[in-house]
């Protein structure tokens, strides 16, 4: 191989590596509107809130390992699905996750925004696909374990906690709706 060919090869490989890193860099992967459009088929679906009453606050604290940051959680819904946008801290900064639940099972899981410098690998389908069809198991934990990613342990944990929270809150909204229907 001549020196010119070698230089060309190094140049092409460098550009390819730079491109790969640029694509993988932290950032906004999907806006809330795009997520809701994809999840529920409309940009402005109906929304409601779950208030963190004392009972729910205890449950959420157990699931997240820390108290909820806000007094109420917003969700969007249609006839069969609920969509949740959850901010959960991985290492130092919050990761924004979009989770859709249908029939008490996770229908889709996606990373909307990643702000930290490491752990962004959780956005890829090889990781997010693990959440498909997961439901609540014993003691309100996930029905199956999630395989980790080397070097992204804290992001994986944050993602798993968020998925668990979405299932818990979805279950709560279903119970609330049933209770309201019974009262009527």
């Amino acid at each position: 191989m001549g020196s010119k060919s070698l230089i060309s090869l190094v140049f092409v490989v460098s550009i390819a590596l730079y491109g790969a890193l640029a694509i993988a860099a932290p950032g906004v992967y999907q806006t809330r509107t795009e997520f809701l459009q994809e999840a529920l088929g409309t940009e402005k679906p109906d929304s409601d809130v779950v208030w963190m009453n004392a009972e729910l606050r205890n449950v959420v604290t157990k699931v997240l390992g820390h108290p909820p940051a806000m007094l109420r959680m917003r969700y969007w819904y249609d006839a069969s699905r609920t969509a949740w946008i959850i901010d959960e801290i991985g290492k130092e900064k919050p990761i924004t996750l979009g989770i859709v639940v249908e029939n008490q099972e996770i229908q889709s899981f996606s990373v909307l925004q990643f702000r930290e410098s490491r752990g962004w690998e959780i956005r890829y389908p090889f990781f997010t696909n693990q959440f498909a069809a997961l439901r609540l198991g014993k003691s309100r934990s996930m029905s199956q374990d999630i395989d980790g990613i080397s070097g992204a342990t804290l992001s994986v944990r944050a993602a798993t906690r968020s998925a668990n929270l979405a299932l818990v809150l979805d279950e709560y909204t279903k119970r609330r709706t049933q209770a309201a229907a019974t009262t009527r």
Partner: protein
Amino acid sequence: MNTLNEEPKRQQRLGKHWARRTHRVLGVSSVTFIFLISLTGLVLNHADTLKLSTHYISGPVMLGLYGIDAPPVETAFEARGVIFATADNKLFANGQLMADEVEALRGAITKDDVIVLATDNEFFIVTQSAELVERFAPDVSGLTGRLGTDGQLAVADIDSHQFVFDTNSMRLQSLPGITNVTWSQAVTPSQQQVANIAATSLGKTLSWERVLSDLHSGRILPTVGRYLADITAICLLYLCVTGIFLWFRRR
């Protein structure tokens, strides 16, 4: 017999050998650094388990060493007697941390029984006792410049267009022509509140992971530290080489 006489001499020769002497001197003199590097390396290896990135050092000496000063208060607004301020990408209520990853505050108003705050790109609903109810980033192009009220509606000025912010649905609706809007005015927080903000903000600036990592690499001391770490690494390499050399010579 001859061999027995030669052995002490061989040992003596070996003891005086330059490699043994330098090995001994460097070994003893680099003990402190090797101990420091090994210990910090061990702890850093378990940084996640020990939660080093979320435990912070707030001592003035360490913060001074890093040249970390109190962050300036960007903007501050008052509602229902509570001073809300942003500094260092954090939102504070009466000097207490309320939320992270926040842009500059643009206004604070009272609506019904809650307080509405607007930053460049988000809205916050807060109780009168300064508890965060909900935060929301609307998908609108443009940044919020002002937040005000006409007595009933929460009005946001986004790129010179008026929007009404619904605190229940957390939606913005374009509604030009609202008159008699009283825009929220910036205030100056008291010295005590600035001091509280500084203390809270500085208290979450320098993590143990950062300090231990800098101790490990020598960067804790500007310039000199790195060279000290280099010297320690060279010493370690030298000790490895001379150690093997002396072991072979003895055999």
